[in-house]
């Protein structure tokens, strides 16, 4: 395990070993989770991919600084591991001056999507330690969708209530019109709704059930 790491270290550019110190100064750590993102279609990590990374980062620096001609040789990685994670520093073109962390961060933030796209990864699978992704703005529709469903249901219920309330009135009206035409209207109107009949009549105790009420 330890041998593998040493081997990888020795492969990195010897010139930049002095500049790129993990965890110190202007260095950033980046972590790739290719297998998590792509599963079976994961590509192996090799020198060509590393070249692509340096090119993408150089592009990000050029884009942010608006023209300063950063090149692939200005991105110095070191401490590459099996995880596929490594540290890197950025130097100004043609000099060995380190670019400060803040600038690097803003450059990466600006071109994050392009860098992700180059590797077919996402914000979660291509992580820059310390640089938080700017999350997409939430999509808020003009009318919240729940209100629409609520409106539909409420409308249906209101229609139902009104229908139930109005229907017997309409029926009664129709019946009254029919009675006005018939001759036996007197007998018909005698049959009122049950409530009126029960309350207005005189209670005939002859047929009452004595045991219904408790003796006092």
């Amino acid at each position, binding site marked *: 395990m330890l041998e593998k790491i040493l081997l990888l270290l020795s492969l990195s550019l010897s010139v930049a070993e002095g500049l790129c110190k993990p965890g110190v100064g202007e260095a950033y750590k980046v972590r790739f989770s290719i297998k998590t993102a792509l599963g079976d279609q994961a590509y192996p990590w090799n020198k060509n991919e590393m070249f692509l990374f340096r090119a993408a980062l150089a592009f990000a620096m050029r884009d942010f600084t608006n023209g300063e001609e950063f090149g692939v040789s200005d991105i110095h990685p070191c401490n590459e591991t099996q*995880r*596929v*994670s490594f540290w890197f520093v950025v130097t100004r073109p043609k000099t060995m001056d380190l670019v400060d962390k803040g600038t690097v961060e803003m450059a990466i933030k600006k071109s994050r999507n392009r860098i992700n796209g180059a590797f077919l990864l996402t914000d979660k699978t291509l992580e820059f330690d310390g640089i938080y992704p*700017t*999350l997409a703005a939430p999509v808020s529709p003009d009318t919240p969708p*729940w209100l629409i469903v*609520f409106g539909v249901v409420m409308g249906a*219920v209101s229609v139902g209530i009104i229908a139930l309330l109005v229907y017997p009135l309409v029926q009664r009206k129709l019946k009254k019109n029919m009675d006005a035409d018939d001759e036996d209207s007197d007998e018909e109107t005698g049959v009122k709704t049950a409530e009126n009949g029960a309350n207005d009549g005189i209670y005939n105790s002859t047929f009452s059930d004595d*045991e219904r*009420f408790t003796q006092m």
Partner: protein
Amino acid sequence: MEKDGRPNWDSPMQFVLACVSYAVGLGNVWRFPYLCQLHGGGGFLIPYLIMLLLEGLPLFYMELAIGQKMRLGSIGAWTSISPYLGGLGLASVVTSVYLCLYYNVINAWSFWYLFHSFQSVLPWAVCPINSNRTGPTEECEVATPTQYFFYRETLNISSSIEENGGIHTGQALCLVLAWAITYLFIVRGVKSTGKVVYFTATFPYLVLFIYLIRGVTLHGAINGLKYMFTPKMAELANPRAWINAATQIFFSLGLGFGSLIAFASYNQHNNNFQNQAIVVSLINSGTSIFASIVTFAIYGFKATLNYENCLDRMRLLLLNTFDLAEDAISMDSVLEWTEKLNTTYPEQFAQIADKVREGECNLEKELDTAVEGTGLAFIVYSEAIKNMPLPQLWSVLYFFMLLLLGMGSMLGNVTAIITPLRDFKIMSRMSNELFSGLVCVFCLLLGLGFTTTSGNYWFTIFNDYAATFSLLFIVLIEVIAVSYIYGIKRFEKDIEDMLGHRPNWYWKIMWAVTSPLLLIGLFIFYIINYIQGGTPTYQAWNKELGESAVTEYPVFGQVFIVLLLVSSVSCVPLTALYAFCRKRKDRAYEKRPSAVSTVSV
């Protein structure tokens, strides 16, 4: 139409379905599985079924008999049994009013969740982003997205019962809708209720069945089912298990509210309620067991998912700290790698030792988190749903089922208020529709108090105290009244009159001896528990920590609790006193020729 013009159910089937719809409610889904888990899984069925035989069935039968015989709501029925007992009916009505006030708020929440399920991403699946767009909102980060959605977006809860804010408009709208639908169902009395119950009683079973199939085919469901069905017989020795079984049967059947009396009062005189009582009670218990199978399958799924996510987090932590290749550690080998790395790189491991300890993954612990009540229905279940494939469909189905269960129970609750009040002459002058409308509007306006920011805490007060103690008291007096004041012999004769045969010795022993004793025992236990429990407490949501903390009720809260209890219980002695005074007054006028008609309500 019977000779006294009382409306009737169109068929005995409607009556049975109405009782099923009323009895099978939210408690079957969210209280019984919790009790099962608490008291040793499958073993809990033993005290549960024994209590069903000892108190559930006989008391259910008794209430149906009274309603069908007296053909009046609870107030009229008890006044007929003895003029001093009219207060029993009044206490039932008061308790039903309290229940109606807070129960429909649950339906309002179900509507809220149901309407929010019609989105491509369920709102409780992800945290909303904070204003800097750097990450999720703080409160959501410390809690979980489902908890955040429930406490912040649904309730907008304050940090204690003392702090109050405005009304949550979304909640208020949903509450209005819930009451509108309730009104729609009861506006024509039993004619409309009778048609609605065909749907509210049967559709939840369809959904439960669909969920059963979905649940047992989920990854990890078997863990939950194993956990539930391994009976821990030692729990049977715990008296709490028996007490919880007794109270669960009691509240699950909805005894004492007057709903059963009200429903039965619309029956034909010779309706065979004995078989119907047995059928409904068995359906109710069967549904509880059915629902807990579904719940435990879902628990198992959720616990396994959380466990696997935890393992994955551990795996990532190890990979990133030790810079190992991505496929070096698989999910199964996380634990052995932890050991290995601890021994080979102790100093490096010490740096992350805290994180490892904190995030320790334990399947048992995940399954052990027993939740009941609104927490189960709205937080745990919605968390499980968001992880299912096609979550919108399952969410809609689930909350629709909750709504049907809740609405079905509401039908019984509101009927329990309207039927006895309509039996009074003054009320019956008003039309059916107007009276029902007034009751609904009244309950709606008071219920709006539960949609304020501290509303959930008031809801908890009502949920825990409004109907528990008073019901025990009411049903205890009921069974004593029927067995000893009215007399078992007379009751037997009434039943023979209705059914054509007398109840056998099982029923008589239960009414006269077992049920009263059991109820007295429960009653005493409740009082002791209340006194011993000290100051009553509640769970207050702390938004900084993202969890609930146990807080004591302030003085006005405790006073309110006492008021709630006293207001319903005191109806019984006060009305008895009133009847006694009136009797004395009437006796003074006994010499007069005019007819005494004190009991015709």
